[in-house]
């Protein structure tokens, strides 16, 4: 493959326009490499050339994102890139956000592959879109040379459409994709080695990074249950007798609705349980143990709740993928909203 064209995005400082006083600088396009682009060009060792540089002030991008991004993208398009490289932005938040935005837009709107570099805690790292590779850099320009070497290596691979190896090996931030590989050490050996490093206070790299779950603010309480409409949602695996919809016993791919209007309780002749993660005999013998329709009807009769929604929503919660569970939740939530449901009883096992 012949040399491919890199268009390099830099802020006002690394683009040589000036410091904070030039942070409002409008996007400009210049031929050839500038500032860190000179070394980037050299590090690509003839496999790629930094053909042009687009420079823009960080504040301008932060304060007028839509129009500035549009202008930057026009300049990038004009320079006919095979690959867009942005930064490194190091720990600079505004610069990092700009690099991420320019890369995402180049990828989505121009169909141009894009790579940037920044420190992992840069807010730009969080905001990057799908398919934008972020090389890891240090927090300041003091590691410029090593950071550009990593960036150049990734840029050449991406520009040549070569597959990337694992994030740890290549030095980029994980994209969220998991891939199985055989290694040289067994899992048991890796566990013991990692433990020894942890006990000794040495650095170690967890093979799965546990995220903090995104909090959802609690919904406000129901003011008066005696007038409220309630719905029942269950992941207990309760389905109609014979499982007519074919809900899977684990990692279910569907949720179902059953009309329970007119039912005073759930009969074992009409309902069964297909959850594959626990012993379901007790539930199959008396489905009210999973969805307490008998008790809820009594509450309805006694006026302690307004009324019970006519539809029962059900699926199997057994090791359901997180993303699918969220999707099912959103779909059911939309139905509940449009039906005017004010509160929900959710039974899970």
């Amino acid at each position, binding site marked *: 493959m012949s040399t491919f064209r890199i268009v390099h995005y830099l802020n006002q400082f690394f683009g040589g326009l000036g410091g904070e006083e030039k942070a409002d600088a409008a996007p400009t396009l210049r031929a050839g490499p500038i500032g860190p682009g000179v070394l980037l060009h050299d590090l690509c060792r003839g496999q790629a050339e930094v053909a042009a540089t687009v420079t823009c002030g960080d504040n301008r991008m932060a304060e007028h994102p839509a129009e500035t991004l549009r202008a930057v993208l026009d300049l990038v398009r004009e320079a006919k890139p095979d690959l867009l490289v942005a930064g490194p932005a190091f720990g600079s938040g505004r610069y990092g956000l700009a690099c991420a935005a320019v890369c995402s837009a180049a990828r989505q709107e121009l169909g141009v592959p894009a790579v940037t570099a920044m420190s992992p805690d840069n807010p730009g790292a969080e905001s990057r879109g799908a398919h934008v590779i972020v090389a890891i850099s240090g927090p300041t320009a003091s590691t410029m040379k090593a950071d550009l070497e990593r960036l150049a290596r990734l840029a050449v691979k991406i520009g040549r459409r070569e597959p*990337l190896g*694992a994030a740890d090996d290549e030095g980029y931030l994980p*994209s969220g994709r998991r891939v199985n*590989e055989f290694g040289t050490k067994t*899992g048991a050996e890796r*566990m013991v080695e990692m*433990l020894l490093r942890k006990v000794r206070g040495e650095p170690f790299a967890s093979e799965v990074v546990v995220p903090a779950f995104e909090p959802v603010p609690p919904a406000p309480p129901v003011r008066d249950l005696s007038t409220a409409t309630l719905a029942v949602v269950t992941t207990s695996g309760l389905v109609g007798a014979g499982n007519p919809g074919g809900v899977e016993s684990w990692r279910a791919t569907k949720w179902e609705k059953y009309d329970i209007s007119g039912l005073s309780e759930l009969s074992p002749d009409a309902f069964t349980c297909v959850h594959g993660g626990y012993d379901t005999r007790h539930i199959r013998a008396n489905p009210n143990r999973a969805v307490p329709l008998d008790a809820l009807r009594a509450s309805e009769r006694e006026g302690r709740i307004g009324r019970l929604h006519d539809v029962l929503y059900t699926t199997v919660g057994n090791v359901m993928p997180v993303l*699918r569970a969220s999707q099912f939740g959103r779909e059911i939530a939309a139905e509940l909203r449009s039906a005017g449901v004010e509160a929900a009883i959710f039974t899970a096992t």
Partner: protein
Amino acid sequence: MQLELLGFTVRDVRFGARTDLAGGVLTVDKDALASHLLEDPDLAEVRLAIARPGDSTRIIHILDAVEPRLKVKGGGDFPGFLSTPTPVGAGVTHRLEGVTVLVTGTLSGAADSQGLKESIVDMSGPAARYNPVSGNVNLVIEVAARPGASPVESAAASRKAALKAAVYLASPTRGLTPDRRESLALPPVDGALPRIGYVMPAMSEGELHTTFFYGRSVQSLPALVHPNEILDGALVSADYWIACHRSPTYLYQNEPVIRSLIARHGRDLEFAGVLLCRCLITSQDEKMRQASQTAKVARMLGIRGAVVTMSNGGHAYLDQMLICRELEQAGVATVLGVDEYSDADGSDFPLVTTVPEATAVVSMGNQEQIVDCPAVDTVLGGTAFLAGNSYEKAFGQAPGSALSVALRQIYCSTNQLGWSTLRGRAY
């Protein structure tokens, strides 16, 4: 406690007129072994076959894998099953290296949560490297229990057959000179080395799916166990759930974490022992009690760090995560062994549940990765895939045909004890 483990290398297994071991070839008197096993009135039928590395053979319906062993001194074979439940882990034990007994069957009457999941071993092709026995010569014993036996009785009969066969195959080593000698013990070490424990929650979900410790199901209060006990037959598997997770008896006899910790004992660490407890506890209070009791015992033992594995999936992750949290809060550093539910394309978050204290996690791979298994000449263990796995589309096919299945169906492929070098990595 010192165990002399004497290894006899077996390069091939053949059926012949008399059971013996000579020149690395184990000859098995098929009829004698079959009638030995059929002495059990709960067994109606046994079929014996041999599967060698590289054979175009697929084995299905695997219930357990056992390494042939013979206790020569200091205790009995598979205590709690074939001998009294008195401690093992000392004395002399013979083992056949390179051979496994694979017992297969369908557990008549098994259904729903007391069911049996399919589990596959390919002896050659791209799927072979995902299971721990394709490099061994396997004696495959297909069993059928007496008509009318319950699933629990069927499983018990298959287990007894596997253990008896394991002892039968190792019996010719009596009086022979071993190829390899190992002396396993935990002698006193330099006090400056960190004391390390191994917290081992073994699966137990009920009567059918469980793990036996000296013949009884593991409990949810941590038991302090000498690692030699586990290597010497104290733990026997009765897990018939998801194939990829299974910890067969074979992996307890060759427990990889214990092996790794013993190898480093006196060099990098002091191995304080195994805290054996339970996975898949169904009550919240019992889950919490186990986790806090485990942390308490670890503290009393002066343990600074612990490997925490798990067995099976689903809410077994919670048992592990609660133990992790309690240990970390008690000042005991943890590393967790897990496998992943990352979806076939690797896009989903890998774990079922987590705690913020889980900062050191080792992944044995994504069980949902698809693996291609080419068509084979021979199928052992059964004639059709189990109907209970209807969600796996490939299972509508004949078992000898070419399959694309998730690793989930491949025996022990992502087992969390970490026998394999397979790992899930972030891209």
